[in-house]
């Protein structure tokens, strides 16, 4: 390398920041593990119980019982579908109110966002137990819980997409003499609809998993069977439910995510 070129090269950046970040991250992980009582020794010493459990769950699979799994599984999927659908229906208008480029009232945007984040922080399982205590046992409470849960998820992502649209198209509709509904229909909807559908499908995928455990608190679906068979220690039945649910989740994820990929 010649001298002229060497003199032009800027000094090599120091990597102190990079290394200190790595050390910090590992420090946090290790100290969290220690505080929460995580112990590798415990895992190893209990490993044989785990193997015994797996053995009784899956070897051999309780195929005879499979028929009985289908109905609650379908109910779980239906709960997830209905919950995602209603969640999405409420999410869109609320996302519009939260979006600062559609409703230009700052305090209203902020309040709506706080409201959204509030719902987003409550786990679906907690929502479900609350609704069970209000509406009684059954899938209605579960559907309500999933509705609220998907609403929080979809509305947050949707309002962020609305804020990221190309505002020029909004200006074009304004310049045509359009009102707020026209702006929504012609400038915002075409730009965010594919993303919105994609978020709804994503919420549906998450809901399928969430719905599977809601039965635990009596909110319908396949979860209540887990509860029953675990307490009866019928691990072979638990095993077959896990296997079939796993297959169903995999299939639904595959279909849903391939649709999503095509949308955006």
């Amino acid at each position, binding site marked *: 390398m010649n001298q002229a070129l060497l003199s032009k090269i800027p000094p090599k950046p120091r990597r102190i920041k990079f290394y200190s970040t790595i050390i910090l991250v590992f420090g946090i992980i290790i100290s969290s593990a220690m505080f929460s009582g995580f112990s590798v020794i415990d895992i190893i010493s209990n490993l044989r119980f785990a193997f015994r459990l797996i053995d009784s769950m899956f070897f051999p699979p309780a195929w005879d019982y499979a028929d009985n799994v289908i109905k609650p599984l379908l109910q779980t999927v239906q709960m997830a579908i209905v919950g995602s659908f209603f969640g999405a229906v409420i999410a869109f208008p609320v996302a519009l109110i939260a979006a600062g480029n559609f409703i230009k009232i700052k305090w209203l945007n902020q309040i709506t966002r706080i409201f959204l984040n509030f719902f987003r922080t409550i786990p679906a399982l907690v929502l479900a137990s609350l609704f069970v205590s209000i509406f009684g046992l059954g899938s209605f409470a579960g559907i309500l819980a999933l509705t609220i849960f998907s609403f929080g998820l979809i509305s947050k992502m949707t309002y962020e997409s609305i804020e990221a649209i*190309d505002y*020029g*198209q909004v*200006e*074009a*509709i*304004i*310049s*045509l*003499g*359009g*009102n707020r*509904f*026209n702006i929504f*229909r*012609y*400038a915002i909807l*075409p*730009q965010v*609809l*594919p993303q919105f559908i994609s978020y709804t499908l994503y919420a549906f995928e998450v809901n399928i998993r969430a719905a599977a455990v809601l039965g635990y608190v009596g909110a319908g679906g396949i979860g209540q069977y887990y509860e029953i068979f675990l307490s009866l220690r019928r691990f072979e039945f638990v095993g077959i439910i896990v296997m079939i649910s796993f297959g169903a989740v995999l299939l639904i994820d595959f279909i849903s995510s391939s649709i999503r990929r095509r949308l955006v």
Partner: protein
Amino acid sequence: MIKFVNVNKTYPNGTVALVDVNLEIQEGEFVAILGLSGAGKSTMLRTLNQIIDVTSGNIIFNNVDVNTYEMYGDNIEKEIARQKELNPEFDETKLNLKEIDITKIKGKKLRKMRSNIGMIFQNFNIIKRMSVIQNVLSGRISYNPTWRTIFGFFPKKDKEIALQALDRVDIIEKTYHRASDLSGGQMQRVAIARSLAQNAKILLADEPVASLDPITTFEVMRFLKKISVEDGITMIANLHHVDLALEYATRIVGVKEGKIVYDIQIKGKNKKDIIKDLEIVYGRPISHDDFVGEE
């Protein structure tokens, strides 16, 4: 006629964009606004349809029917004839023509006023995920009840208007194409068709050709000129190229630091003199970069 009266604009962050702008534009003029980047050209256009509000001053349009907020402009007879063509029951005795200051009106009245004023953007701002015809039909939104526009049920008459507009900019063969599949020049022609469907009497063009290649640039400029001449549409265009202004405009207005520093009718003037005068606007001699080049 459009009249800026002592218009000032200071943005909320303190940037002064327009300083005491006074300007009168007659119907059918093709005004090219020239000036350096940041001079205030876009601000000036956008105050005209109140996408940006003014800090002080008035922007006045003459002969606006206060029942419908339809603009009749300088050539009342011609506009009455056009209205009769659109609506056989049109009753001209009901007209109540007044001067309207667009900076003083709000809500529905403002939206009605805006529907008289078309706008063409540098990056077209057509709706990419809709078809060409839907885009042009969106020019009719202010003439239809909201529910119709939401469902996209436009009357047959509007479809005819949209197709005619597409035909005038020579792009009718793309009627059912998705707008995102068009080239830049074609997108800009769709935007022009949308303004025609809107029945714009004034067209604001904010650097309409800045994202186009030279050949398409001339094509789009020719269409703007054509509708200006044939329909008497008042054209106000921010341009970056001096030769485009000299070739297509009838008048050049120079803006510098928010003030109008130059204003000339091109007809009968020596182009070389104008180019020399433009040094006032740009604060430097005009160079090759200020020209698109030969057509």
